[in-house]
Protein backbone atom coordinates (compact mmCIF):
# COMPACT_ATOMS: atom_id res chain seq x y z
CA UNK A 1 0.00 0.00 0.00
CA UNK A 2 1.05 3.54 -0.65
CA UNK A 3 2.99 5.08 2.23
CA UNK A 4 1.10 8.37 1.88
CA UNK A 5 -2.17 6.51 2.28
CA UNK A 6 -0.93 4.94 5.49
CA UNK A 7 0.11 8.30 6.82
CA UNK A 8 -3.25 9.83 5.92
CA UNK A 9 -5.16 7.05 7.70
CA UNK A 10 -3.00 7.35 10.78
CA UNK A 11 -3.43 11.12 10.87
CA UNK A 12 -7.19 10.77 10.51
CA UNK A 13 -7.36 8.57 13.59
CA UNK A 14 -5.05 10.86 15.53
CA UNK A 15 -7.03 13.96 14.56
CA UNK A 16 -10.24 12.29 15.69
CA UNK A 17 -8.68 11.64 19.09
CA UNK A 18 -7.21 15.10 19.48
CA UNK A 19 -10.31 16.93 18.30
CA UNK A 20 -12.45 14.88 20.63
CA UNK A 21 -10.21 15.51 23.61
CA UNK A 22 -10.37 19.24 23.07
CA UNK A 23 -14.02 19.47 24.00
CA UNK A 24 -15.41 17.86 27.10
CA UNK A 25 -19.08 17.14 27.12
CA UNK A 26 -20.89 19.41 29.56
CA UNK A 27 -24.26 18.11 30.56
CA UNK A 28 -24.88 20.72 33.21
CA UNK A 29 -24.71 23.88 31.13
CA UNK A 30 -28.32 24.81 31.65
CA UNK A 31 -28.34 24.34 35.38
CA UNK A 32 -27.06 27.75 36.32
CA UNK A 33 -23.66 28.72 37.51
CA UNK A 34 -21.95 29.56 40.74
CA UNK A 35 -23.08 32.99 41.83
CA UNK A 36 -19.83 33.82 43.54
CA UNK A 37 -18.09 34.63 40.28
CA UNK A 38 -20.66 37.26 39.33
CA UNK A 39 -21.29 39.10 42.58
CA UNK A 40 -19.71 42.53 42.49
CA UNK A 41 -18.01 43.56 45.66
CA UNK A 42 -19.94 46.27 47.47
CA UNK A 43 -19.01 48.46 50.38
CA UNK A 44 -19.38 47.08 53.86
CA UNK A 45 -22.73 47.91 55.29
CA UNK A 46 -24.36 48.17 58.67
CA UNK A 47 -26.44 45.36 60.15
CA UNK A 48 -29.95 45.11 58.74
CA UNK A 49 -32.48 47.17 60.63
CA UNK A 50 -35.68 45.08 60.95
CA UNK A 51 -37.70 48.29 61.06
CA UNK A 52 -36.74 49.20 57.50
CA UNK A 53 -36.65 45.71 56.06
CA UNK A 54 -38.43 45.23 52.77
CA UNK A 55 -40.12 42.30 51.13
CA UNK A 56 -40.32 41.01 47.60
CA UNK A 57 -42.71 38.38 46.37
CA UNK A 58 -44.26 37.19 43.16
CA UNK A 59 -45.34 34.36 40.96
CA UNK A 60 -43.32 32.38 38.49
CA UNK A 61 -45.28 31.28 35.46
CA UNK A 62 -44.71 28.86 32.64
CA UNK A 63 -45.59 30.16 29.18
CA UNK A 64 -46.64 27.84 26.42
CA UNK A 65 -48.05 24.36 26.54
CA UNK A 66 -47.28 22.52 29.71
CA UNK A 67 -45.13 19.53 28.76
CA UNK A 68 -46.63 16.14 29.37
CA UNK A 69 -45.27 14.68 32.58
CA UNK A 70 -42.75 11.89 32.14
CA UNK A 71 -43.75 8.68 33.80
CA UNK A 72 -41.21 6.87 35.95
CA UNK A 73 -40.90 3.10 35.80
CA UNK A 74 -40.27 1.97 39.36
CA UNK A 75 -40.61 -1.74 38.64
CA UNK A 76 -36.90 -2.30 39.37
CA UNK A 77 -37.68 -2.24 43.08
CA UNK A 78 -40.92 -3.61 44.55
CA UNK A 79 -40.43 -1.42 47.61
CA UNK A 80 -40.85 1.72 45.51
CA UNK A 81 -44.52 2.72 45.58
CA UNK A 82 -44.66 6.45 45.20
CA UNK A 83 -45.82 9.09 42.76
CA UNK A 84 -44.33 7.88 39.53
CA UNK A 85 -44.22 11.14 37.65
CA UNK A 86 -40.96 13.01 37.09
CA UNK A 87 -40.63 16.53 38.50
CA UNK A 88 -38.43 18.06 35.82
CA UNK A 89 -41.05 20.70 35.00
CA UNK A 90 -44.00 20.98 37.38
CA UNK A 91 -46.58 23.51 36.21
CA UNK A 92 -50.15 23.83 37.45
CA UNK A 93 -52.41 26.18 35.47
CA UNK A 94 -49.33 27.94 34.18
CA UNK A 95 -47.77 28.36 37.64
CA UNK A 96 -44.27 26.94 37.84
CA UNK A 97 -43.11 25.08 40.94
CA UNK A 98 -39.57 24.23 42.08
CA UNK A 99 -37.97 27.45 40.85
CA UNK A 100 -35.15 28.65 43.08
CA UNK A 101 -35.29 32.42 43.60
CA UNK A 102 -32.44 34.27 45.29
CA UNK A 103 -30.76 37.64 45.57
CA UNK A 104 -27.87 37.27 43.22
CA UNK A 105 -26.45 40.78 43.43
CA UNK A 106 -26.85 43.79 45.69
CA UNK A 107 -25.99 42.49 49.14
CA UNK A 108 -22.40 43.61 48.92
CA UNK A 109 -20.03 41.99 51.35
CA UNK A 110 -22.57 41.47 54.08
CA UNK A 111 -22.11 38.27 55.99
CA UNK A 112 -24.85 36.23 57.57
CA UNK A 113 -24.90 33.70 60.36
CA UNK A 114 -25.51 30.11 59.39
CA UNK A 115 -28.92 29.02 60.68
CA UNK A 116 -28.76 26.58 63.58
CA UNK A 117 -31.84 24.68 62.54
CA UNK A 118 -31.48 21.84 60.07
CA UNK A 119 -33.32 21.42 56.85
CA UNK A 120 -34.54 18.01 55.73
CA UNK A 121 -34.37 15.83 52.66
CA UNK A 122 -36.77 12.93 52.90
CA UNK A 123 -36.57 9.86 50.68
CA UNK A 124 -40.13 8.62 50.46
CA UNK A 125 -41.85 6.65 47.71
CA UNK A 126 -38.43 6.42 46.06
CA UNK A 127 -38.40 10.15 45.39
CA UNK A 128 -36.71 13.04 47.08
CA UNK A 129 -38.79 15.50 49.07
CA UNK A 130 -38.39 18.34 48.34
CA UNK A 131 -37.30 18.14 44.73
CA UNK A 132 -35.51 21.50 45.01
CA UNK A 133 -33.92 22.50 48.29
CA UNK A 134 -32.27 25.77 49.29
CA UNK A 135 -29.82 26.12 52.18
CA UNK A 136 -27.14 28.47 53.39
CA UNK A 137 -23.49 27.50 53.26
CA UNK A 138 -22.65 25.31 56.22
CA UNK A 139 -26.29 24.75 57.14
CA UNK A 140 -27.02 21.27 58.38
CA UNK A 141 -29.07 19.01 56.11
CA UNK A 142 -30.73 15.98 57.66
CA UNK A 143 -31.30 13.19 55.17
CA UNK A 144 -33.93 10.60 56.08
CA UNK A 145 -34.97 7.36 54.46
CA UNK A 146 -38.65 6.55 54.94
CA UNK A 147 -38.67 3.77 52.32
CA UNK A 148 -38.37 0.02 52.87
CA UNK A 149 -35.39 -0.12 50.57
CA UNK A 150 -31.80 1.07 50.62
CA UNK A 151 -31.02 4.34 48.89
CA UNK A 152 -27.76 6.00 48.21
CA UNK A 153 -27.36 9.74 48.30
CA UNK A 154 -24.87 11.00 45.80
CA UNK A 155 -24.40 14.74 45.23
CA UNK A 156 -22.40 15.54 42.10
CA UNK A 157 -21.21 19.09 42.78
CA UNK A 158 -18.89 21.31 40.78
CA UNK A 159 -17.58 23.41 43.65
CA UNK A 160 -18.22 21.28 46.74
CA UNK A 161 -16.91 17.92 47.86
CA UNK A 162 -18.53 14.93 46.21
CA UNK A 163 -19.70 12.03 48.36
CA UNK A 164 -21.82 8.92 47.97
CA UNK A 165 -23.34 7.13 50.94
CA UNK A 166 -25.90 4.38 51.20
CA UNK A 167 -28.73 4.51 53.70
CA UNK A 168 -30.64 1.34 54.62
CA UNK A 169 -34.36 1.46 55.47
CA UNK A 170 -35.18 3.24 58.72
CA UNK A 171 -31.52 4.01 59.32
CA UNK A 172 -30.50 7.02 61.37
CA UNK A 173 -30.55 10.29 59.39
CA UNK A 174 -27.38 11.27 57.59
CA UNK A 175 -26.26 14.80 58.42
CA UNK A 176 -24.37 16.81 55.83
CA UNK A 177 -23.65 20.38 54.80
CA UNK A 178 -22.08 22.13 51.82
CA UNK A 179 -19.29 24.62 52.39
CA UNK A 180 -19.40 26.60 49.16
CA UNK A 181 -22.05 28.41 47.18
CA UNK A 182 -23.46 26.35 44.34
CA UNK A 183 -26.67 26.66 42.39
CA UNK A 184 -28.65 23.61 41.27
CA UNK A 185 -26.24 21.09 42.71
CA UNK A 186 -27.54 17.73 41.47
CA UNK A 187 -28.18 14.91 43.93
CA UNK A 188 -29.05 11.43 42.74
CA UNK A 189 -29.55 7.88 43.91
CA UNK A 190 -27.59 5.40 41.80
CA UNK A 191 -29.74 2.54 43.02
CA UNK A 192 -32.90 4.19 41.67
CA UNK A 193 -31.74 6.20 38.67
CA UNK A 194 -34.94 8.26 38.40
CA UNK A 195 -34.33 9.76 41.87
CA UNK A 196 -32.93 13.24 41.30
CA UNK A 197 -33.09 16.47 43.18
CA UNK A 198 -31.20 19.76 43.38
CA UNK A 199 -29.68 21.57 46.33
CA UNK A 200 -29.01 25.30 46.11
CA UNK A 201 -26.35 26.62 48.46
CA UNK A 202 -25.99 30.38 49.00
CA UNK A 203 -24.36 32.64 51.56
CA UNK A 204 -27.34 34.85 52.30
CA UNK A 205 -30.71 33.94 53.81
CA UNK A 206 -32.56 35.78 51.02
CA UNK A 207 -33.90 32.96 48.91
CA UNK A 208 -37.04 30.95 48.29
CA UNK A 209 -38.32 28.05 46.22
CA UNK A 210 -41.64 28.42 44.42
CA UNK A 211 -44.43 26.18 45.64
CA UNK A 212 -47.06 24.35 43.62
CA UNK A 213 -48.84 27.69 43.08
CA UNK A 214 -45.67 29.23 41.61
CA UNK A 215 -45.45 31.78 44.44
CA UNK A 216 -42.40 32.86 46.38
CA UNK A 217 -41.62 35.42 49.07
CA UNK A 218 -38.32 36.84 50.32
CA UNK A 219 -38.53 38.93 53.51
CA UNK A 220 -36.18 40.99 55.63
CA UNK A 221 -34.19 42.62 52.83
CA UNK A 222 -32.45 45.92 53.60
CA UNK A 223 -33.34 48.77 51.23
CA UNK A 224 -31.23 48.69 48.09
CA UNK A 225 -30.87 47.74 44.43
CA UNK A 226 -30.91 44.02 43.81
CA UNK A 227 -30.72 41.48 41.07
CA UNK A 228 -33.13 38.63 41.60
CA UNK A 229 -32.27 35.36 39.91
CA UNK A 230 -34.86 32.71 39.07
CA UNK A 231 -33.34 29.29 38.35
CA UNK A 232 -35.18 26.30 36.98
CA UNK A 233 -33.35 22.96 36.68
CA UNK A 234 -34.04 22.52 32.98
CA UNK A 235 -34.76 26.00 31.67
CA UNK A 236 -31.83 27.67 33.37
CA UNK A 237 -31.54 31.12 34.93
CA UNK A 238 -33.36 34.41 34.37
CA UNK A 239 -32.75 37.64 36.26
CA UNK A 240 -34.64 40.82 37.10
CA UNK A 241 -33.51 44.01 38.77
CA UNK A 242 -35.53 45.46 41.61
CA UNK A 243 -35.14 48.53 43.83
CA UNK A 244 -36.49 48.28 47.34
CA UNK A 245 -37.04 51.26 49.61
CA UNK A 246 -37.45 50.99 53.36
CA UNK A 247 -40.43 48.80 54.31
CA UNK A 248 -41.18 48.27 50.63
CA UNK A 249 -43.25 45.35 49.52
CA UNK A 250 -42.85 44.76 45.85
CA UNK A 251 -44.15 42.15 43.50
CA UNK A 252 -41.73 40.73 40.95
CA UNK A 253 -43.23 38.09 38.66
CA UNK A 254 -41.21 36.05 36.27
CA UNK A 255 -42.16 33.95 33.27
CA UNK A 256 -40.32 30.95 31.79
CA UNK A 257 -40.77 29.67 28.29
CA UNK A 258 -39.75 26.23 27.11
Amino acid at each position, binding site marked *: *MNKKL*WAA*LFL*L*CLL*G*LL*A*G*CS*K*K*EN*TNEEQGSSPSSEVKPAPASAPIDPATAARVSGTVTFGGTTPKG*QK*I*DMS*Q*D*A*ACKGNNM*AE*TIVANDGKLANVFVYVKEGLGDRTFDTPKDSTTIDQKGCQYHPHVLAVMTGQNIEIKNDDD*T*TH*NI*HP*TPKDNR*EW*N*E*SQPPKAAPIEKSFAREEIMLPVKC*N*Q*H*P*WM*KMYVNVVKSPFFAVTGADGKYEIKGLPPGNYTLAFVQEKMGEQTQKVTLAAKDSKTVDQGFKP
Partner: protein
Amino acid sequence: MPAVPRASCPRSGGRDARQRAGGDAGATQTSEEPLLKAIAIPYNRAHHRFAVFAASATFLLIVAGALVTSNDAGLSVPDWPTSFGSLYKIPRLVGGVKFEHTHRMIAQFVGFLSIILAAWTGRADPRRWMKWLGVTALGLVIAQGILGGLTVLFYLPPAISSAHAALAQTFFCVVVLIALFTGRNWLEEIPQVEIRHDQNDAPRPLFTLSLLSVFVLYVQLVLGAMFRHHGLSWWPHVLNAATVAIVLAWTSIRALLRYSGIDSVRRPAITVLALMIAQLYLGFVAFLTRVAWGHDAVQPELPMVISTVAHVAVGALLLATTAVLAVEVWRHSPVSVREHIPGRERKAVAA
Protein backbone atom coordinates in the same frame (compact mmCIF):
# COMPACT_ATOMS: atom_id res chain seq x y z
CA MET B 1 4.51 -7.34 -5.77
CA PRO B 2 7.25 -9.69 -6.92
CA ALA B 3 6.28 -13.18 -7.86
CA VAL B 4 6.86 -15.52 -4.97
CA PRO B 5 6.80 -19.25 -4.98
CA ARG B 6 4.32 -20.86 -2.59
CA ALA B 7 5.07 -23.73 -0.36
CA SER B 8 2.49 -25.75 1.40
CA CYS B 9 3.87 -26.35 4.88
CA PRO B 10 2.04 -29.07 6.73
CA ARG B 11 2.16 -28.48 10.46
CA SER B 12 2.40 -32.08 11.47
CA GLY B 13 4.52 -34.70 9.83
CA GLY B 14 6.45 -31.75 8.60
CA ARG B 15 9.51 -33.25 7.05
CA ASP B 16 8.09 -32.70 3.60
CA ALA B 17 7.28 -29.15 4.42
CA ARG B 18 10.72 -28.44 5.76
CA GLN B 19 12.29 -29.94 2.74
CA ARG B 20 10.05 -27.92 0.46
CA ALA B 21 10.59 -24.76 2.43
CA GLY B 22 14.30 -25.38 2.49
CA GLY B 23 14.24 -26.14 -1.19
CA ASP B 24 12.36 -22.98 -2.03
CA ALA B 25 14.64 -20.94 0.12
CA GLY B 26 17.55 -22.06 -1.91
CA ALA B 27 21.05 -21.57 -0.63
CA THR B 28 20.02 -19.38 2.30
CA GLN B 29 18.11 -22.16 4.05
CA THR B 30 20.10 -25.31 4.00
CA SER B 31 19.33 -26.75 7.41
CA GLU B 32 16.24 -28.68 8.30
CA GLU B 33 15.10 -26.15 10.85
CA PRO B 34 11.35 -25.81 11.06
CA LEU B 35 9.57 -22.54 10.40
CA LEU B 36 8.57 -20.48 13.41
CA LYS B 37 4.98 -20.51 12.29
CA ALA B 38 4.82 -24.25 12.20
CA ILE B 39 5.57 -25.78 15.54
CA ALA B 40 3.85 -29.01 16.41
CA ILE B 41 2.34 -28.93 19.90
CA PRO B 42 0.10 -31.70 21.13
CA TYR B 43 -3.52 -30.57 21.34
CA ASN B 44 -4.76 -30.39 24.93
CA ARG B 45 -8.53 -30.49 24.67
CA ALA B 46 -9.25 -29.72 28.33
CA HIS B 47 -6.90 -26.74 28.34
CA HIS B 48 -8.38 -25.37 25.14
CA ARG B 49 -11.95 -25.82 26.35
CA PHE B 50 -11.10 -24.07 29.57
CA ALA B 51 -9.65 -21.14 27.61
CA VAL B 52 -12.84 -20.98 25.52
CA PHE B 53 -14.88 -21.04 28.73
CA ALA B 54 -12.78 -18.23 30.20
CA ALA B 55 -13.26 -16.18 27.01
CA SER B 56 -17.03 -16.77 27.16
CA ALA B 57 -17.14 -15.75 30.81
CA THR B 58 -15.17 -12.62 29.94
CA PHE B 59 -17.66 -11.77 27.22
CA LEU B 60 -20.46 -12.17 29.77
CA LEU B 61 -18.51 -9.88 32.10
CA ILE B 62 -18.27 -7.22 29.39
CA VAL B 63 -22.03 -7.42 28.87
CA ALA B 64 -22.57 -7.14 32.65
CA GLY B 65 -20.26 -4.10 32.76
CA ALA B 66 -22.10 -2.48 29.87
CA LEU B 67 -25.38 -3.02 31.73
CA VAL B 68 -23.94 -1.19 34.74
CA THR B 69 -23.04 1.86 32.64
CA SER B 70 -26.22 1.88 30.56
CA ASN B 71 -28.36 1.65 33.71
CA ASP B 72 -26.36 4.41 35.39
CA ALA B 73 -25.68 1.99 38.24
CA GLY B 74 -21.94 2.48 38.55
CA LEU B 75 -22.08 3.87 42.07
CA SER B 76 -25.08 2.01 43.42
CA VAL B 77 -22.67 0.05 45.60
CA PRO B 78 -20.70 2.94 47.09
CA ASP B 79 -17.76 1.02 48.54
CA TRP B 80 -14.95 -1.17 47.17
CA PRO B 81 -13.49 -3.80 47.55
CA THR B 82 -16.36 -4.50 49.94
CA SER B 83 -19.99 -4.30 48.91
CA PHE B 84 -22.00 -2.45 51.57
CA GLY B 85 -19.22 -3.27 54.02
CA SER B 86 -18.98 -7.00 53.32
CA LEU B 87 -16.65 -9.07 51.17
CA TYR B 88 -18.94 -12.07 50.86
CA LYS B 89 -22.56 -11.11 51.69
CA ILE B 90 -24.78 -10.72 48.68
CA PRO B 91 -26.88 -7.56 49.08
CA ARG B 92 -30.53 -7.31 48.06
CA LEU B 93 -30.28 -7.31 44.28
CA VAL B 94 -32.70 -4.53 43.37
CA GLY B 95 -32.36 -1.36 41.32
CA GLY B 96 -28.81 -0.44 40.37
CA VAL B 97 -27.34 -2.87 42.93
CA LYS B 98 -28.61 -5.75 40.78
CA PHE B 99 -26.34 -4.64 37.92
CA GLU B 100 -23.33 -3.45 39.90
CA HIS B 101 -23.07 -6.35 42.30
CA THR B 102 -23.72 -8.96 39.58
CA HIS B 103 -20.90 -7.34 37.60
CA ARG B 104 -18.61 -7.63 40.63
CA MET B 105 -19.50 -11.28 41.17
CA ILE B 106 -18.85 -12.20 37.53
CA ALA B 107 -15.60 -10.22 37.69
CA GLN B 108 -14.47 -12.23 40.71
CA PHE B 109 -15.30 -15.42 38.84
CA VAL B 110 -13.36 -14.31 35.76
CA GLY B 111 -10.43 -13.36 37.99
CA PHE B 112 -10.51 -16.86 39.45
CA LEU B 113 -10.65 -18.38 35.95
CA SER B 114 -7.67 -16.24 34.91
CA ILE B 115 -5.56 -17.57 37.78
CA ILE B 116 -6.36 -21.14 36.73
CA LEU B 117 -5.76 -20.35 33.06
CA ALA B 118 -2.35 -18.76 33.75
CA ALA B 119 -1.29 -21.65 35.99
CA TRP B 120 -2.57 -24.29 33.58
CA THR B 121 -0.91 -22.63 30.60
CA GLY B 122 2.31 -22.35 32.58
CA ARG B 123 2.28 -26.06 33.34
CA ALA B 124 0.74 -27.61 30.25
CA ASP B 125 1.86 -25.49 27.34
CA PRO B 126 5.48 -25.96 26.20
CA ARG B 127 5.56 -22.63 24.32
CA ARG B 128 7.32 -20.04 26.40
CA TRP B 129 5.43 -17.12 24.85
CA MET B 130 2.17 -18.85 25.71
CA LYS B 131 3.18 -19.03 29.34
CA TRP B 132 3.80 -15.28 29.20
CA LEU B 133 0.46 -14.74 27.49
CA GLY B 134 -1.24 -16.51 30.40
CA VAL B 135 0.62 -14.33 32.89
CA THR B 136 -0.27 -11.24 30.83
CA ALA B 137 -3.96 -12.18 31.00
CA LEU B 138 -3.69 -12.53 34.75
CA GLY B 139 -1.92 -9.17 35.06
CA LEU B 140 -4.56 -7.51 32.92
CA VAL B 141 -7.44 -8.88 34.96
CA ILE B 142 -5.78 -7.69 38.19
CA ALA B 143 -5.22 -4.22 36.70
CA GLN B 144 -8.81 -4.27 35.51
CA GLY B 145 -10.10 -5.06 38.99
CA ILE B 146 -8.05 -2.21 40.46
CA LEU B 147 -9.35 0.22 37.82
CA GLY B 148 -12.90 -0.91 38.59
CA GLY B 149 -12.31 -0.20 42.27
CA LEU B 150 -10.69 3.17 41.61
CA THR B 151 -13.55 4.32 39.43
CA VAL B 152 -15.96 3.59 42.31
CA LEU B 153 -13.79 5.26 44.94
CA PHE B 154 -13.26 8.37 42.80
CA TYR B 155 -16.91 8.63 41.65
CA LEU B 156 -16.52 7.52 38.04
CA PRO B 157 -13.90 9.92 36.66
CA PRO B 158 -14.11 9.71 32.85
CA ALA B 159 -10.42 8.81 32.40
CA ILE B 160 -10.50 5.87 34.81
CA SER B 161 -13.91 4.62 33.69
CA SER B 162 -12.80 4.78 30.04
CA ALA B 163 -9.56 2.95 30.85
CA HIS B 164 -11.63 0.31 32.66
CA ALA B 165 -13.81 -0.12 29.55
CA ALA B 166 -10.84 -0.30 27.17
CA LEU B 167 -8.83 -2.69 29.33
CA ALA B 168 -11.84 -5.00 29.58
CA GLN B 169 -11.79 -5.55 25.83
CA THR B 170 -8.00 -5.82 25.78
CA PHE B 171 -8.22 -8.63 28.31
CA PHE B 172 -11.01 -10.25 26.28
CA CYS B 173 -8.80 -10.19 23.16
CA VAL B 174 -5.92 -11.81 25.06
CA VAL B 175 -8.13 -14.62 26.39
CA VAL B 176 -9.65 -15.15 22.94
CA LEU B 177 -6.14 -15.42 21.49
CA ILE B 178 -5.17 -17.94 24.17
CA ALA B 179 -8.21 -19.95 23.13
CA LEU B 180 -7.12 -19.63 19.49
CA PHE B 181 -3.53 -20.67 20.15
CA THR B 182 -4.59 -23.70 22.16
CA GLY B 183 -7.16 -24.80 19.59
CA ARG B 184 -6.89 -27.90 17.47
CA ASN B 185 -7.17 -25.80 14.35
CA TRP B 186 -4.15 -23.70 15.28
CA LEU B 187 -2.04 -26.67 16.36
CA GLU B 188 -2.91 -29.11 13.63
CA GLU B 189 -3.89 -27.03 10.63
CA ILE B 190 -1.68 -27.13 7.57
CA PRO B 191 -0.89 -23.51 6.77
CA GLN B 192 -0.44 -22.42 3.21
CA VAL B 193 2.68 -20.34 3.78
CA GLU B 194 4.54 -18.60 1.03
CA ILE B 195 8.31 -18.66 1.24
CA ARG B 196 10.01 -15.52 0.05
CA HIS B 197 13.56 -16.15 -0.97
CA ASP B 198 14.06 -13.14 -3.16
CA GLN B 199 13.41 -10.46 -0.54
CA ASN B 200 14.14 -11.53 2.99
CA ASP B 201 12.69 -8.38 4.52
CA ALA B 202 9.85 -7.91 2.09
CA PRO B 203 6.86 -6.07 3.54
CA ARG B 204 3.67 -7.96 4.26
CA PRO B 205 1.00 -5.43 3.31
CA LEU B 206 -2.06 -7.46 4.30
CA PHE B 207 -0.64 -8.20 7.74
CA THR B 208 0.17 -4.51 8.22
CA LEU B 209 -3.34 -3.66 7.08
CA SER B 210 -4.83 -6.09 9.57
CA LEU B 211 -2.74 -4.50 12.33
CA LEU B 212 -4.05 -1.12 11.24
CA SER B 213 -7.57 -2.53 11.56
CA VAL B 214 -6.88 -3.49 15.17
CA PHE B 215 -5.42 -0.04 15.81
CA VAL B 216 -8.34 1.97 14.38
CA LEU B 217 -10.79 -0.27 16.19
CA TYR B 218 -8.95 0.30 19.46
CA VAL B 219 -9.01 4.06 18.89
CA GLN B 220 -12.73 3.71 18.24
CA LEU B 221 -13.13 1.74 21.46
CA VAL B 222 -11.38 4.48 23.46
CA LEU B 223 -13.44 7.23 21.81
CA GLY B 224 -16.65 5.31 22.47
CA ALA B 225 -15.71 4.64 26.07
CA MET B 226 -14.87 8.30 26.65
CA PHE B 227 -18.19 9.39 25.21
CA ARG B 228 -20.05 6.82 27.27
CA HIS B 229 -18.31 7.97 30.44
CA HIS B 230 -18.86 11.69 29.79
CA GLY B 231 -15.25 12.50 28.98
CA LEU B 232 -15.85 13.43 25.37
CA SER B 233 -18.54 14.52 22.97
CA TRP B 234 -20.21 11.94 20.72
CA TRP B 235 -18.92 13.22 17.40
CA PRO B 236 -15.28 11.93 17.46
CA HIS B 237 -16.63 8.40 17.95
CA VAL B 238 -19.18 8.83 15.16
CA LEU B 239 -16.62 10.45 12.84
CA ASN B 240 -14.04 7.73 13.43
CA ALA B 241 -16.68 5.08 12.65
CA ALA B 242 -16.29 5.96 8.97
CA THR B 243 -12.52 5.36 9.13
CA VAL B 244 -13.06 2.07 10.95
CA ALA B 245 -15.64 0.90 8.42
CA ILE B 246 -13.36 1.69 5.47
CA VAL B 247 -10.26 0.08 6.98
CA LEU B 248 -12.08 -3.03 8.20
CA ALA B 249 -13.95 -3.53 4.95
CA TRP B 250 -10.74 -3.08 2.99
CA THR B 251 -8.83 -5.52 5.20
CA SER B 252 -11.54 -8.16 5.16
CA ILE B 253 -12.12 -8.01 1.42
CA ARG B 254 -8.39 -8.16 0.68
CA ALA B 255 -8.01 -11.08 3.07
CA LEU B 256 -10.91 -12.86 1.38
CA LEU B 257 -9.45 -12.26 -2.07
CA ARG B 258 -5.93 -13.21 -1.05
CA TYR B 259 -6.77 -16.26 1.08
CA SER B 260 -10.09 -17.40 -0.31
CA GLY B 261 -9.11 -21.03 0.08
CA ILE B 262 -7.89 -20.84 3.67
CA ASP B 263 -10.67 -21.38 6.21
CA SER B 264 -8.77 -19.95 9.16
CA VAL B 265 -8.47 -16.60 7.39
CA ARG B 266 -11.72 -16.65 5.45
CA ARG B 267 -13.88 -17.29 8.50
CA PRO B 268 -12.65 -14.37 10.64
CA ALA B 269 -12.65 -12.10 7.56
CA ILE B 270 -16.31 -12.86 6.86
CA THR B 271 -17.13 -12.53 10.58
CA VAL B 272 -15.41 -9.14 10.74
CA LEU B 273 -17.49 -7.93 7.80
CA ALA B 274 -20.73 -9.22 9.30
CA LEU B 275 -19.98 -7.84 12.78
CA MET B 276 -18.93 -4.50 11.34
CA ILE B 277 -22.25 -4.12 9.50
CA ALA B 278 -24.14 -5.12 12.65
CA GLN B 279 -22.04 -2.72 14.70
CA LEU B 280 -22.72 0.22 12.38
CA TYR B 281 -26.43 -0.49 12.61
CA LEU B 282 -26.30 -0.82 16.41
CA GLY B 283 -24.25 2.35 16.67
CA PHE B 284 -26.90 4.22 14.70
CA VAL B 285 -29.69 2.88 16.93
CA ALA B 286 -27.67 3.62 20.07
CA PHE B 287 -27.13 7.19 18.84
CA LEU B 288 -30.86 7.64 18.27
CA THR B 289 -31.93 6.15 21.59
CA ARG B 290 -29.31 7.88 23.69
CA VAL B 291 -28.29 11.13 22.01
CA ALA B 292 -31.21 12.08 19.78
CA TRP B 293 -34.23 10.80 21.69
CA GLY B 294 -32.97 9.91 25.14
CA HIS B 295 -31.08 12.99 26.34
CA ASP B 296 -34.08 14.19 28.38
CA ALA B 297 -35.08 10.79 29.72
CA VAL B 298 -35.75 10.72 33.46
CA GLN B 299 -34.17 7.30 33.75
CA PRO B 300 -32.34 4.82 31.50
CA GLU B 301 -34.92 3.55 29.03
CA LEU B 302 -35.01 -0.02 27.76
CA PRO B 303 -34.38 0.72 24.04
CA MET B 304 -31.31 2.76 25.03
CA VAL B 305 -30.06 0.06 27.39
CA ILE B 306 -30.53 -2.74 24.84
CA SER B 307 -28.94 -0.86 21.95
CA THR B 308 -25.95 0.48 23.88
CA VAL B 309 -25.20 -2.83 25.59
CA ALA B 310 -25.47 -4.65 22.24
CA HIS B 311 -23.17 -2.02 20.71
CA VAL B 312 -20.55 -2.66 23.40
CA ALA B 313 -20.90 -6.44 23.12
CA VAL B 314 -20.64 -6.53 19.33
CA GLY B 315 -17.75 -4.06 19.55
CA ALA B 316 -15.89 -6.47 21.82
CA LEU B 317 -16.56 -9.37 19.45
CA LEU B 318 -15.44 -7.26 16.50
CA LEU B 319 -12.17 -6.26 18.17
CA ALA B 320 -11.39 -9.85 19.16
CA THR B 321 -12.26 -11.19 15.70
CA THR B 322 -10.10 -8.53 14.07
CA ALA B 323 -7.23 -9.54 16.34
CA VAL B 324 -7.77 -13.18 15.34
CA LEU B 325 -7.82 -12.16 11.68
CA ALA B 326 -4.53 -10.28 12.11
CA VAL B 327 -2.92 -13.32 13.72
CA GLU B 328 -4.20 -15.67 11.03
CA VAL B 329 -3.07 -13.34 8.27
CA TRP B 330 0.36 -13.17 9.91
CA ARG B 331 0.43 -16.93 10.04
CA HIS B 332 -0.39 -17.35 6.39
CA SER B 333 1.47 -14.37 5.01
CA PRO B 334 4.81 -14.79 3.22
CA VAL B 335 7.71 -15.58 5.50
CA SER B 336 11.31 -14.66 5.24
CA VAL B 337 13.71 -17.57 4.92
CA ARG B 338 15.59 -16.10 7.90
CA GLU B 339 12.67 -16.84 10.19
CA HIS B 340 13.68 -19.97 12.03
CA ILE B 341 12.85 -21.63 15.27
CA PRO B 342 15.09 -20.40 18.08
CA GLY B 343 17.60 -22.97 19.15
CA ARG B 344 16.01 -23.76 22.50
CA GLU B 345 12.70 -24.66 20.83
CA ARG B 346 14.14 -26.81 18.10
CA LYS B 347 13.07 -29.99 19.75
CA ALA B 348 9.56 -29.28 18.53
CA VAL B 349 8.61 -31.43 15.62
CA ALA B 350 7.84 -29.29 12.79
CA ALA B 351 5.91 -28.44 10.15
